């Protein structure tokens, strides 16, 4: 699964730490997600989408490995 978290973060002018703080996770989690090393749970994906006010599919998408 890939995501454009980094882009969304830039649009909203948030650091990894800011974003982590807003959704109540550790900064490492955001970092791991941006590097595609961690696939978030549905709950976390929904929280992120809600924060950016977009549908989940606009931020997360399947890639050829899924």
């Amino acid at each position, binding site marked *: 699964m890939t995501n454009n978290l980094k882009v969304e973060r830039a649009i909203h002018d948030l650091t990894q730490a800011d974003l982590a703080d807003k959704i109540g996770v550790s900064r490492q989690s955001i*970092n791991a*997600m941006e590097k595609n090393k961690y696939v978030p749970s549905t709950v976390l994906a929904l929280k992120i989408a809600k924060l950016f006010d977009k549908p989940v599919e606009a931020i997360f998408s399947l890639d050829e490995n899924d």
Partner: protein
Amino acid sequence: MKTNYLLSHKYKTTGWILFIIGLISGIFMVFSGFESDLLNTKVLSIFNYGILNNEEVKFFKIIDNSIVDEITALFIIIGGLIVGFSKEKIEDEFIYKLRTDSLVWAIIFNYLVLIFTIIFIYDMTFLNIMIFNMFTPLVFFVFRFNFLKHKAQNHDE
């Protein structure tokens, strides 16, 4: 992240203290050959058959024993469990995944090492390996977990 078996973060420091004291004491015991007269005290032995001097089987006897090794073992085990299973400052699903991944890694690594020692190490030396093996799953787990956490921390934006 809701989990029902993790301890509160405030126990972490206590865990580290016990774990490190236990490990240092353990290393010291390895080099002193596991023999000690320190803290000799009366303890309750619920079952004992003298393996070396062919004694009869005894149940529920009070015996004299140095409890340094018992304390060391308990410190390592209890300390290690607390360190491994207390919450991080920010406990979330990613940290939880790192913890479970580390556990899987530690079990597999531990038993690969044990398979190797079963094949290539014999006699009393193997019994010594078994002493280490009481603690290595936990020790490997704690080190692996902290290594992964550290690695995740270091790659900055």
